[in-house]
């Protein structure tokens, strides 16, 4: 292989690496806004009521949510894990449900907490 | 017949060579704008008046480029010095509440001695910095504007119409000329046709007068010597003409013209803008004369007149036509691109008629 060809291949490769790196970095560095909604969710057949005694742990500060609340949390990177702590007001028993969201390059997500907790396959809702 | 044809063709080629492609393109473009205008609901009369008013307003500032270009000092980016003198003249005349043509005259009268003073100083700088005149001129101009900004705050002007109301000292950023000598030249013998067309006769007479004076100056012994310094400094020196002195004279002349031009500008504009206002005022004037076909080392009165008309025409017509068509306001961007593009074109062109 002659020198010129080798170098040009190397240069092209480096450019490609740079572009790929840019994508990778965008993937890692992108902030997404996740809108969590704690109101009644009507999915495929079932109707899930809002949750009481809900506490959300995300990448930001933990937040408590009352029924009907809607909050915005932001998350960075390709995926994030949300933890929902639900303390039943009657029994004072709490359970934790963690949910991993794969975000990709999409910027905004609308998530219904009752749907997640209720194990719905498609907890997204449309505004 | 054939021969005549050929001559005719040669004539066109020569004309193009003399006139320069950019000028022709811009002239055609301007003409096109005037043709399009009525179809998109723009009143040609108003546009034409706008353009004429702005020509009268800016003409002398453009003329202020000529002496320095002719003496080989390049484009006068130090125009703010003259402008400062014009501002001081105007403010001083207003301090005494002088009105009408008298107020205007006094403003010019106050401005000229200061312009001479600043011009001499600037001339010495320019002579120290042969070969780098334009860059240094720019920054000398900027420094003086910033320095005067401090002065505007401190100078003992007391007329309540001029100074800040609450402190009683320090000139306002924008001072209205209403009640002083707003549009005294524009309105002098002005011609009005219909409700929309207005011809600022006074300003044009004054502009023409200045042009004739500059033209005549270049026919005098000093003027001829000055051109000689510009086109071949060694020749001038070999014939006993002091290059440095001629350059200073040209700078003084340019600065005085700048000062007078500024007063004219103010009366037409109706406002005086102090502080950082004059910072970039040299650029449109520089662009206009270059658009008129001047180069870094040669400029004529016709360059001034043609350039001012074309430049102001573009500036008035392009925004309104484009706004009419696209509903966007790109005036500022077009102004920046046209004026700086023109200057760039001139800077990159190999100096015509220079002997190295």
């Amino acid at each position: 292989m002659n020198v010129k060809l080798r170098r040009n291949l190397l240069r092209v490769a480096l450019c490609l690496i740079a572009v790929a790196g840019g994508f990778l970095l965008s993937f890692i560095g992108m902030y997404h806004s996740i809108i969590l909604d704690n109101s009644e969710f009507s999915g495929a057949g079932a109707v899930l009521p809002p949750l009481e005694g809900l506490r959300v742990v995300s990448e930001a500060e933990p937040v408590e949510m009352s029924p009907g609340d809607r909050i915005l949390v932001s998350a960075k990177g390709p995926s994030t894990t949300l933890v929902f702590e639900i303390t039943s007001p009657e029994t004072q028993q709490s359970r934790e449900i963690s949910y991993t969201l794969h975000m990709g390059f999409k910027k905004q997500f609308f998530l219904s907490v009752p749907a997640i907790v209720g194990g719905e396959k498609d907890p997204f809702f449309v505004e | 017949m054939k021969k005549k044809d050929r001559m005719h063709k040669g004539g066109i080629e020569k004309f193009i060579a003399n006139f320069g492609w950019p000028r022709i393109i811009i002239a055609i473009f301007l003409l096109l704008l005037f043709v399009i205008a009525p179809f998109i609901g723009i009143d040609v009369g108003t546009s034409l008046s706008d353009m004429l008013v702005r020509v009268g307003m800016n003409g002398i500032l453009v003329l202020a480029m000529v002496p320095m270009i002719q003496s080989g000092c390049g484009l006068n980016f130090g125009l703010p010095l003259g402008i400062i003198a014009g501002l001081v003249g105007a403010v001083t005349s207003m301090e005494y509440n002088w009105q009408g043509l008298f107020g205007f005259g006094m403003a010019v009268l106050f401005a000229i001695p200061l312009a001479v003073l600043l011009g001499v100083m600037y001339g010495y700088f320019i002579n120290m910095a042969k070969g780098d005149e334009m860059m240094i001129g720019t920054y000398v101009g900027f420094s003086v504007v910033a320095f005067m900004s401090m002065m505007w705050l401190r100078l003992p002007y007391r007329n309540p119409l001029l100074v800040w109301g609450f402190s009683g000292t320090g000139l306002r950023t924008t001072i209205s000329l209403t009640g002083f000598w707003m549009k005294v030249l524009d309105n002098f013998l002005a011609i009005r046709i219909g409700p929309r067309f207005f011809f600022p006769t006074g300003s044009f007479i004054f502009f023409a007068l200045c042009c004739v004076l500059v033209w005549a100056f270049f026919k005098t012994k000093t003027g001829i010597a000055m051109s000689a310094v510009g086109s071949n400094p060694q020749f001038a020196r070999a014939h006993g003409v002091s290059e440095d002195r001629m350059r200073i004279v040209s700078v003084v002349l340019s600065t005085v013209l700048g000062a007078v031009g500024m007063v004219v500008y103010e009366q037409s504009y109706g406002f005086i803008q102090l502080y950082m206002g004059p910072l970039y005022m040299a650029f449109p004037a520089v662009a206009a004369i270059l658009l008129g076909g001047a180069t870094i080392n040669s400029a004529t009165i016709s360059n001034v007149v043609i350039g001012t008309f074309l430049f102001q025409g573009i500036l008035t017509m392009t925004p309104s036509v484009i706004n009419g068509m696209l509903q966007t306001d790109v005036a500022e961007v077009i102004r920046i691109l046209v004026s700086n593009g023109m200057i760039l074109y001139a800077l990159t062109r190999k100096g015509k008629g220079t002997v190295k």
Partner: protein
Amino acid sequence: MKPKYSLKGALISNLVPIVFLMFAAFAVPMSGLSIPYLLHEMISRLARDSLLVLSLVIPVLAGMGLNFGMVLGAMAGQIGMVLVVDWGLGGMPALLVAALLGTPISIGLGYFCGYILNLAKGREMVTSYIIGFFMNGAYQFLLLYCMGSIIPITNPELLLSRGYGIRNSMDLPNIRQVLDRLVSVEVFGMDIPILTFAVIAVFCLLIVWFKTTKIGQDMRAVGRNRAVANGAGIPVEKTRILAIIISTLIACYGQIVSLQNLGTINTYNSHEQVGIFSIAALLVGGATAENASIANVFVGVFLFHLMFVVSPMAGKNLIGDAQLGEYFRVFVSYGIIAVSLLLHAWKKRHEMLERRLLENDGKE
């Protein structure tokens, strides 16, 4: 032969920094600002601006004077930042992606600028200055009219209310000081942004190393004597274009570093001031249009910003008018450029005359 070094010579060649140092010695007590505060400010500003000023060194090496065209690099950096913000990136990846985006834009703009400067040899400074203005028009056109209409902008918060065009200013909440804070050390209650300084140090080393390469040597030769360099077969024009491209690139990265430190972008003003301030800082540091070193960069940024911070307060305490101090520092930054250029032009002419006379004596 004349003696090579003398105290007087050293004083004269460092006249500008010495004057500024004296000015600072007078103005610092007048301002009433505390030394720790000033020190903190200076460290922060050194981190912010050094890279931008550093971008001016290479074109000086190539004999092209002070590259006012560095604002093109700043524009490229800003375009990168705007896009990154729109895409919702944050943290270090955002800075890196902005730099990746700015790189091809800078190379393109640098090539354009270098090409034009080759057409205007001997008038490089004033031409690069006008190129800056000219491209500012293009920049405004791109951001005000193309973004949001031709170039998709998804984040409506960035756009003007009319639906296209970028807003006048934007906050960078997820980018603010990410580089500064990633690795920083606290000394006497001051955060020292180690990583930022490390980046600056890397660029300094690159420049030092660059001078030891063939291309660096070619640039020096082109800068010292174009005719001889050309005669020796060095591709003069290509070398000059390269110098401008490198300058534009460093300015692009410098602007990105500067913006992350500030945490906001003034979309239409940030870059305009960059050129004037950087050049003033370099000149204050004792550089000339023909000679600039890395030491000039740091001394210059320090002194210039010291004056910048101190003079409004000093003005206020001395005359009772902060606005006056404000104008004073504008006056000083323009004035210093004017005076430095003037001294430089004057010196150049005298040296030329002297050399001519010396040549004559040599023949005796």
